[in-house]
């Protein structure tokens, strides 16, 4: 166990290091002025340029620069955005929680709907409810997420006028960002009518969550169904059947756990797909998350923002993936290695 922990911690450290090195070299690869790419500041005079170069150790060797970069990162000094001249740390702290929030909603929805659907399909495969479930899982998985978001807007916002099209909360609520998670921030705020604010936040999150969830739910249903089908054919299940247990008993006692454990890491791997979809949906629903922020940074050629944003997102995703892998192996030590997306 300890050995395993050390191995995984090693892996995290190593990956983070690789990412740091990669992000360090990004400003050299980006087009434009290296100094601006690193600092986010466009010098107006030659003196200012020289002063900045010295301040950022650009006159020193690459190795010095790298150490300086790492020091700055760890001391929370992440530089400024060229577009807004705001501190990138503040900006990431402002936008990243919104993305995580949406990811969590979508993940919860997909788990609560997708896994039961997969169970039903897997247990009753080729019968009754299996057909609509298989259809949903294939069709749902085939939807381009941006298109389904647009369809939702057309139907629920423009035709039915039920739900708002954009943001996380009505702009009229002047909600100070404390944690960055809107539901927590409402609780912490001094808004008078909190239930109205919650209702408003809820109305805003329905459509983006659903739009992202369609694909993920379909995927989950499909994985779980397949896994249940495999497990239910195993000899120990057949043995249990022959001993006269009811299908429910068998399923709860053997099928449930044995079907879920092997696919947990596969589901965890889908977090990366999920984040891509969330980032796209953010731009459509004007959800103030890191995806929208990064894509706008591209439009505005805001290279310091792209560098830091990429680093923040990839480190979080990476740590998430590696820790799920670690957890699965800790729970189920018989597994030699996680099989990636072989479905």
């Amino acid at each position, binding site marked *: 166990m300890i050995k395993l922990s050390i191995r995984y911690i090693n892996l995290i450290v190593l990956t983070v290091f690789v990412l740091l090195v990669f992000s360090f070299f990004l400003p050299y690869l980006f087009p434009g002025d290296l100094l601006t790419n690193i600092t986010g500041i466009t010098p*107006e005079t030659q003196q200012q340029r020289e002063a900045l170069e010295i301040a950022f150790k650009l006159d020193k060797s690459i190795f010095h620069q790298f150490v300086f970069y790492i020091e700055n990162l760890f001391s929370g000094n992440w530089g400024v955005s060229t*577009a*807004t*001249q*705001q501190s990138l740390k503040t900006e990431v702290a402002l936008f990243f929680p919104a993305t995580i929030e949406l990811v969590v909603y979508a993940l919860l929805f997909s788990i*609560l*709907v997708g896994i*039961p*659907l997969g*169970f*039903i399909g897997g*247990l*009753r495969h080729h019968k009754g*409810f299996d057909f609509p479930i298989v259809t949903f899982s294939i069709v749902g998985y085939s939807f381009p997420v941006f298109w389904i978001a647009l369809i939702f*807007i057309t139907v*629920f*916002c*423009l035709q*039915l*006028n*039920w*739900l*708002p*099209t*954009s*943001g996380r909360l*009505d*702009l*009229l*609520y*002047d909600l100070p960002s404390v944690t960055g998670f809107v539901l927590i921030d409402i609780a912490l705020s001094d808004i008078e009518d909190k239930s*109205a604010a919650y*209702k*408003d936040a*809820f*109305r805003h999150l*329905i459509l983006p969550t659903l739009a992202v969830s369609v694909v993920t739910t379909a995927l989950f249903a499909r994985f779980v169904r397949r896994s249940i089908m495999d497990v239910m054919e195993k000899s120990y299940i057949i043995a249990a059947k022959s001993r006269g247990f009811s299908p*429910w008993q068998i399923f709860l006692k053997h099928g449930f756990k044995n079907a879920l454990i092997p696919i947990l890491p596969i589901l965890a791997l889908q977090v990366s797909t999920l984040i891509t979809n969330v980032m796209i949906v953010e731009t459509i629903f*004007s959800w*103030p998350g890191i995806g*929208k*922020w990064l894509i*706008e940074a591209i*439009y*505005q*050629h805001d290279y310091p923002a792209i560098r830091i944003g990429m680093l923040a997102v990839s480190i979080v995703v990476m740590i998430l993936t590696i820790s799920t892998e670690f957890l699965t192996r800790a729970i189920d030590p018989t597994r030699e290695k996680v099989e990636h997306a072989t479905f």
Partner: protein
Amino acid sequence: MKSYLANLSRILIALLLCGCLAACEKRDIQHIKNAVVYCSESNPSTFNPQLDTSSTTADATAHQIYDRLLEFNPENGRIEPGLASSWLVSDDGLTYTFQLRRGVEFHTTAYFTPSRSFNADDVIFSIERWKNESHPYHHVNGGSYPYFDSLGLADTIKEVRRINGYRVEITLDSPDSSFLANLATDFSVMLSAEYAMKLLAEGSPSRLDRYPVGTGPFKFVQFRQNQFIRYQRHESYFRPSQGIDQLIFDITQRSSLRMAKLITGECDAVAFPSQNDLVVIEEREDLSLYEEPGLNIGYWAFNTSKPPFDNPEVRKALALAVDKTSLIDAVYLGQATRAKSIVPSTSWAYESGARELGYNPVRAREILTEVGLPANFTMDIWAMPVQRAYNPNALKMAQLIKRYLEDVGIEVNIVSQDWNLFRQNLTNGFHDSVLIGWKADNGDPDNFYRPLLTCDAIPSGTNRALWCNKDYDALIEQALLTDDIEKRRAIYHKANLLIFEQFPLMPIAHAYQYQATRADITGMEINPFGGISFERVKRIQAIQEAEVRND
């Protein structure tokens, strides 16, 4: 098994019910808070309109946060008192004396509490900042004041002098018949000298243009790039009104999303509704559409500093190759008049008989062969990424032009970038040609002729053709020396001919200006001379409720 299904269907039904409940709840917070949400099209690049000529910046600042010494009457364009309650012009037209209004309060915000009201020091500071290169604030945040620079106003003004706390005298070097009009434009805003000095003492002068303080009807609360700008009513505004308490600019770059937000009621008013959607807006009872012939010009400017566009013949050939009528039909959907010269027909300087080039691809091809343009010649057309009345869809127009130029053997590459980046690169002269336009800031034709094409307007970034012609500049100067409209008109007609011969740009259209709002919003009349104003905007229902309470 069954219970699973039952649970599932229960969950689904509950979700649907929630959705419906949430939906059936009417959006009434806007009424409770007496607020208006305006969907704007882009980010302001600064909160001081002195620094920028983009109408996005002007919309977000000029009439919300600030006031000017003088104001235009939006209906007839006459100059009216603003922060100056009266003014005197000397007989030789060189000395202007302004009597300032007393008791005008600056905004009290989270970052600044004024200790005194508006006075002569603020006027002097606001003008000296752009006029005087040695002023401590002149170089703060770029040191470029495009509107004033393009007019050469810093050189025209000899001195700004304080007579007493509420009286200021401005002397000019030469008479300038458009001087008062320039003081009433969006760019001539009055800043707080006290705030500026405080920031200077703190060592953060650049905050002046990012955390603005003015005297206007709304005070700045918060700006978040690509998201929103939040304003609050200025309680002690000198022109008391029954307007709204909160104003929010919801920054939405796509016109289709702005339209969606207008329909769902997330926005009360939108900037630049797409020409295609005008029909939809007119059909719906819950929306209103305002329309006004615009004082504007959409044009196609060639970068005259770059070969082969430095050759007038090439520029003319390019214009000959494009059918202007079809551009107007497809892009403005007929909601525009064809432009012959650069001023629209609503201006007194309009020349109905101005010469223009027709559509003649055969002639275009001949010229191009004569000047020896290489085969497979490729050029860039920069299409501005935002919608404007004068060009509601530059990208579409660029695609149309691309087709026409292919017919005469020219390959076109369309360039479109983020708006602030785009304008920066234009000022640097990176473009071959650009589809852009100009909206008048005052009714004087000088406001078209000077910023669009004079030499002074090149560094300030309003002369997108980078065209510099001494004869033209002389004509434009000459036109300002007299007040006689007939004489001025004759001079401008000469200028038109010069523009036609040199062809630095192809005038395309003068478009109608539109503004769409929810039906319960009043007071959003279009201001033909500059940025949008929310000072008189009200909610009808809010008014009715107030009346009920009074009864």
